[in-house]
């Protein structure tokens, strides 16, 4: 799988959202992505890319788009 596929997959699987919704997806805007869902998402991303995110990055992960930027810090490029 490409990084984009892995990335999308982590969102779809952990939050149970549709792939079509991803581009506009924001933390707390979708009922599935609340603070509890957030922890599941972080775990899924960490597993998918075999990384360990810093606390600040976890807190800053506020949208699907922002997440791509943050993963750049961990040498994950799209």
């Amino acid at each position, binding site marked *: 799988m490409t990084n984009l596929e892995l990335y999308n997959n982590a969102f779809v699987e952990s939050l149970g959202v549709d792939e079509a919704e991803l581009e506009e997806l924001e933390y*707390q805007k979708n009922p599935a992505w609340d*603070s509890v869902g957030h*922890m599941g998402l972080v775990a899924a991303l960490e597993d998918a890319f075999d990384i*360990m995110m810093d606390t*600040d990055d*976890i807190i800053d992960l506020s949208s699907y788009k922002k997440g791509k930027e943050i993963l750049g810090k961990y040498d994950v490029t799209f």
Partner: protein
Amino acid sequence: MIDDFYAYSPYELDAAAKSRLLTGELKRLTAFHREHSPEYAGFLRTVGYDEDKVEKASDIPFFPVRMFKEFDLISIDRSEVFKTLTSSGTTGQSVSKIFLDKQTALSQQKVMARILGDFWGKKRIPLLVIDTPAVLRDRKMFTARGAAVLGLSVIARDTVYVLNDDMSLNTDRLREFLEKYGSQPFTVFGFTFMVWQHFYKELLKTDERFDLSQAFLMTGGGWKKLVDSAVSHSEFKRCITETTGITHFLDHYGMAEQTGCIYAECECGHLHASIYSDVFIRDPEDFSLCPNGTKGIIQVVSALPGSYPGHSLLTEDEGIILGEDDCPCGRKGKYIEILGRMKSAEIRGCSDTYADKFR
């Protein structure tokens, strides 16, 4: 703005530097809440607030914490509320309702992460929660208990709940967790009373020995119940060490009304104020400031409450400032001791309502 604080580590500033940073932010918050909360504006009128006379944080009027139980105090549009925090109260006693917008909730998490990071390092470590996953089941209405657990999960990795829904200890899950992580630093978190009742006492009943010597035990709330059952702070620690091998203790003082700004216990057993908050002790007779070393009512100020007027509060707790900028642990700022609830105050610790069931 709160972002100005992030340039510093949580215990880096001495009294003068901290006062400059914090007083400015508290003045800004006071003006903001006056404009957006009619109840708060009324309160400021009553006490005759004059911003020009504010020179230090203790000059900001203190709002009785009880007001959050009597009124819905909110400084944002209701449509911006995305989480309502309550000091848990399942037993019919009145609860505080705290309305959070996204920004305030975010700063609460960031600040708690920074404060705790100062104690156990920047790296996220596994978390064993002495509670049931049920604390998070209602995702819209968190109690302070749920919020604390959730706040910590962000800072940790791999959160495991060690109690079953009926509050019994799940020794299988505990064993699994320790096999996986027992040989490296990890955090154990629970409210003091629950650690005692559902963890320590249950461990005493089993023949199996569990080695938790690598753990930081983070506790909070509910000391009053233990004092009632004649367990002192030091007795608590001694018993826990004997049974689990835990030697790193991190108790903390905090409240739902100022979530995020916790007062965490250092290696010397002192509770420290970070740069994000401060504490003053007031004489119960005339509310004048008490010198360090004198006991009185605790006033807390915090730079975080942006969505509700909770940035300067008079609590119902009694405490002492032990010193400032000179704790042997090296952290700057005030360090305090909490003596408990004021005698006349209604019992209202967030784990205390739960503990009431055990009377």
